[in-house]
């Protein structure tokens, strides 16, 4: 028989871990968006904008090395 107190502790643990994981997941796009906004506001309007690392990786034309060649 599994005691009720143990199940209660496990349930609190499960809810805490779920909340933590969801926050971490939601934090990723927020971080990317805030980086983008910060960079855009730092660049004067008459100058070309500078891309952040995040943006550069998200849509750059670089193709990762072909794994077949790496092998």
């Amino acid at each position: 028989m599994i005691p009720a107190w143990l199940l209660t502790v496990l349930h609190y643990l499960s809810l805490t871990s779920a909340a933590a994981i969801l926050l971490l997941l939601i934090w990723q796009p927020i971080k990317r968006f805030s980086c983008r906004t910060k960079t855009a506001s730092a660049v004067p309007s008459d100058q070309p904008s500078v891309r952040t690392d995040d943006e550069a990786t998200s849509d750059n034309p670089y193709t990762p090395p072909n794994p077949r060649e790496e092998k």
Partner: protein
Amino acid sequence: MESADHTIEYTMLAAYLVILLGIGIRSARKVKTSNDYTLAGRDVPWIVVLATTAATMIGGGASVGFVSKVCQVGIAAAVVTCAWHLQLIFTGLFVAPRLRGLNLITVGDYFHLKFGPLARELAVINCVVFLVGALAAQMAAIGLVTNTILGVPYGTALLIGATVTIFYSTVGGIRAVVTTDVVQFVILVFGIGVASAILLSQSGGFEAMQSAAQDGQFHITGHWSGMKLFSLFFAFLLGETFIPPFVVRCFIAKDSQHAKWGVAGAGSFLIVFLPIATFILGTSAQINPDVQAAIGDQKQQLLDEAAQSGQSLAEKDALAQAHQVTFPTLVRVTFHPIFAGVMIAAIIAAVMSSADSCLSSLATVVMEDTYRRHINPMATDRQLLRVAQGTTLILGAAGAVCAWFFSNVADILVFVYDFWAPTMVLPFLVAVFWYKPTRIHAAVASMIAGAVGAVVWRFVLKSPGDIGPALFGFVAAVLVFLVAAPITRLWAHGPLFRPCDDSKAEAIQ
């Protein structure tokens, strides 16, 4: 009132399907190479690997299926599911970093690297059998779950669900699959987490739940024998170990550390989160009179239908089938229609995320292990991309057609689990932990022995006792390996047993 509730559920589901289609179209714009399509450019961070791995693990069985199992047999059904999550923790901590470090594409590549071309072909056959079976089962589950929950005819539900899944998988490849998995994971975790908290609070805590539930509900083996619990735990532990959808999650991570923490994190999170949530949902359903009445009505309906069509259906089997309505009925009778709609979408999300992962892995296996290796070794990247997209479309449609004719999800899944564990798990363990070139023949012999053992136990001896073919086949594979390893130690490596690069294979150790 009921039709209004159904309208809300249909609306939520339609909105969810439109979001999935949008993700597919958006992901397609980022797919430029076959690497993007099959490996997401190998730039997925650990938290996303965690979400996509967990979403793949939580299929229709792990959600709807096990809530109804807990309702029937007690906490033992939730305990058994821990085996799935334990294997993910093991894979993440000890296997994922090594696999990611090798920059491979498929399971076949790994077997070729370690054991030579024959082992590769055996591994590819196993992967294809597993993925075709799992794809057909998950497609059937899309139709069945939607039919059970919303009353949409099986064929219509299958057509709509399969079309959306095939569309976003075909246009966006693994990028679309990973992104949709993240959305599905958020809906699932939010929905199941909130539902379990509300239901526990409504019941007055675990002590009140314990006094209201049936005897044995809180007992570790529930209504099962100890042997049955062990056999099921073992089958679940090995049945999904190193299967292609999880191995692909190791390959797509940014680097070895991201692969390690993504996959192990998914297992750690699920082992903490899912069994306890499933237990609360299943026990709440058992003590809820409305849910029990719905199960009774469903059982009577099944018996009446069987009598009308002249088929024989035992009362026990009818009751087991009727328990499929447990989760959706619990959600409907307990929550506000809008939250119930979210939960319904979450249940269908669980099934779709497992189907899309099988489809994506299957397309990669066909592209890399069949087309590039046997049909067109000089294929350009553009050709490989086209083949992967065409394969996803054709095999997705084929999976849906199979699901149309064979809708028994559990039987298909048990069949593929029975053959994966005996043939693939031991050689994988040998390759990762105990590899020596002198053990190649023994590893290949164990793959063949495992397959033969499982076939004999299942089809010739008809699986006597509570011991499943997976357990018997795995034991046969271990014994053959132990006997063959010293005997074949000095055998020369013929062309079929020569690793693709002996020096590299040794250097990896």
